[in-house]
C-alpha cells in the first residue's frame, strides 16, 4: 500500500513512546537537589575555616568541578546522569562533565588534535553563547545605568 510522508510520520509518532516526564522530573529534582545540598554543605565547611562567604563559594565551585571531573574519569558520572537528566546537567558538575568527557574520549587522537581540540565540542556552544549573552547584558546594564 502506498503511504505519504505525512501518514508515515503519523505512524512513526504513534509507535514512538514519549519520555517518562514525571519520573524523569522527580529523579532530576532529587539528584540535582542532592548535588546542591552537597554544594551548600561544602560552603558551610569552608566557612568554618573563617573563609568569607564569597571565597567559600569559589572553593565550593572548584571542589564540585574536581569531583565531577574525577567521577567522569571513573565512569560514575554518566551512570548517575542516566537517571539524573537535567539534575546532573544544569549544576556546575554537568559543565565539568561536558568538558572532561570529550577530553578523555578524544585523547586517542593525540594531545593537540584530539584532547585539546575536541575538549569543547560539547561545552563550546555554551561558552560562546554564554559570553555573547553576557556581552549584550553588559551593554544593556551600561545603557540603563549611565545614560
Amino acid at each position, binding site marked *: 500500500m502506498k503511504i505519504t510522508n505525512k501518514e*508515515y510520520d503519523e505512524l512513526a509518532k504513534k*509507535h514512538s513512546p514519549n519520555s517518562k516526564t514525571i519520573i524523569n522530573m522527580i529523579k532530576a529534582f532529587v539528584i540535582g537537589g542532592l548535588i546542591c545540598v552537597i554544594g551548600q554543605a561544602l560552603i558551610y565547611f569552608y566557612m568554618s575555616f573563617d573563609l568569607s562567604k564569597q571565597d567559600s563559594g569559589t572553593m565550593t565551585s572548584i571542589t564540585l568541578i574536581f569531583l565531577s571531573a574525577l567521577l*567522569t574519569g571513573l565512569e560514575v*558520572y554518566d551512570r548517575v*546522569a542516566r537517571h539524573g537528566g537535567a539534575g546532573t546537567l544544569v549544576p556546575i558538575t554537568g559543565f565539568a562533565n*561536558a568538558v572532561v*568527557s570529550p577530553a578523555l*574520549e578524544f585523547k586517542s587522537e593525540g594531545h593537540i588534535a584530539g584532547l585539546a581540540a575536541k575538549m569543547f565540542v560539547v561545552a563550546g556552544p555554551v561558552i560562546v553563547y554564554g559570553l555573547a549573552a553576557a556581552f549584550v547584558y553588559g551593554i544593556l546594564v551600561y545603557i540603563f545605568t549611565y545614560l
Partner: protein
Amino acid sequence: MGSFIENGTIRLNNNPSILSFAAVVGKTEGDGPLGNEFDEVFEDITLGEKTWEKSESRLQEIALQKAMAKGEISESQIDFLFAGDLLNQCVASNYGVRSFEIPFVGLFGACSTMAESLIMASIFVDSNIATHTAAMTSSHYCSAERQFRLPLNYGGQRTPTAQWTVTGSGAAIITTQDKPPFVRSVTIGKIRDMGIKDAANMGAAMAQAAYETISTHLASTSTSFDDYDLILTGDLGMIGTNMLRELFQRDGFDLNDKHNDCGLMIYDLNKQDVHAGGSGCGCSASVLCGHILKQLKDGAINDVLFCATGALMSPTMIQQGESIPSIAHAVHISATI
C-alpha cells in the same frame, strides 16, 4: 548462474551454500538472551587494543579467523572477501582484514551490510567466478558512539526511541556444496526516505525500506509469507518493528507470529537498559551468524527471509537538517534446495 528476475531480485541457481559462520560479541550482548549462541563473548570490550576503532577491527579479524577455522579452509582458498562497517571510510574492515592475503571489496550499507555482503559473496560463488567467498561486518558500541553521538562518559539521557549499537561481528564463508544453509534468492533494495529526521529514531526511518524490500521479494519470487518460517529484519528495534507490522497489517497480513527483529532478539529489553533494542551492522551479523544459520543448518527451521536494514545518514547531513535515507536488502536462506 544467477538469473535476474525483476526489481532487484536475483534467483541463484547453483545453490551457493554457507560453509561456515562465526559470531563474536561484547559483554552486553553476551549477557543477552542469545549469550550462549556466540562463538566468543569478550568481557573486555577493548579486546586489548588502545582505541575503540582498533577494538572493532579486532572483532572482524577474530570473526573471520573463527569462520575459516570452522570451515577448515585457509585464507588462500578464499577468492574474495566482502566486508564493511559503520565507521568513516569503513576503517574497522580495512584495518581488521589488512593482515589477510585475501582480495578485498569494501562495502558500505550501514546496518544492512550483513545482507549486502552476503548477497555479493553468494552471487560471486553462484556465477562460478569464485569457489569460496567471505561476507563480514561489525559494529562496536564505543566506536559508533564517538562517531555518531556523544563521548562515552558524557552524562546525558537517551530518548526511549534510541537504540543500542551492538558490539559484535559476524562472518560467513560461502561455497558450492550440497549441504545447507543455501542462499536461494536475493533482493537488492532501493533507497527509501520517508522524511524522518530524528537520528535517535532510526527504526522508524528504516521500517518503510524493510516493508518495500520484503514486499518486492515476495512479489518477484512469487512466494508468500507461508513459504517462510521466519521473516527476520536487521535492526528495526521496537518502534520500527511495530511500524513494519502495521504496514503489513494494512495490506491484510498479520506478521506477529512470523516476524522477528535481530535488534529485539539480541538484548532483553526489559532487563537491559537498551531502550528500543539493538542496532548496528554487528546486530544482524551476530544474530544471523551466531543463532539463525545454526538453526538452518540443524534443520530446526527451513526458510528464512533475512532482511537487514540500514540508515544511510551521517552526523553532518543530520546537522544540515536532512532526513534519513534508508535501505533494506533481502536474502532467502533455506535448509533445502
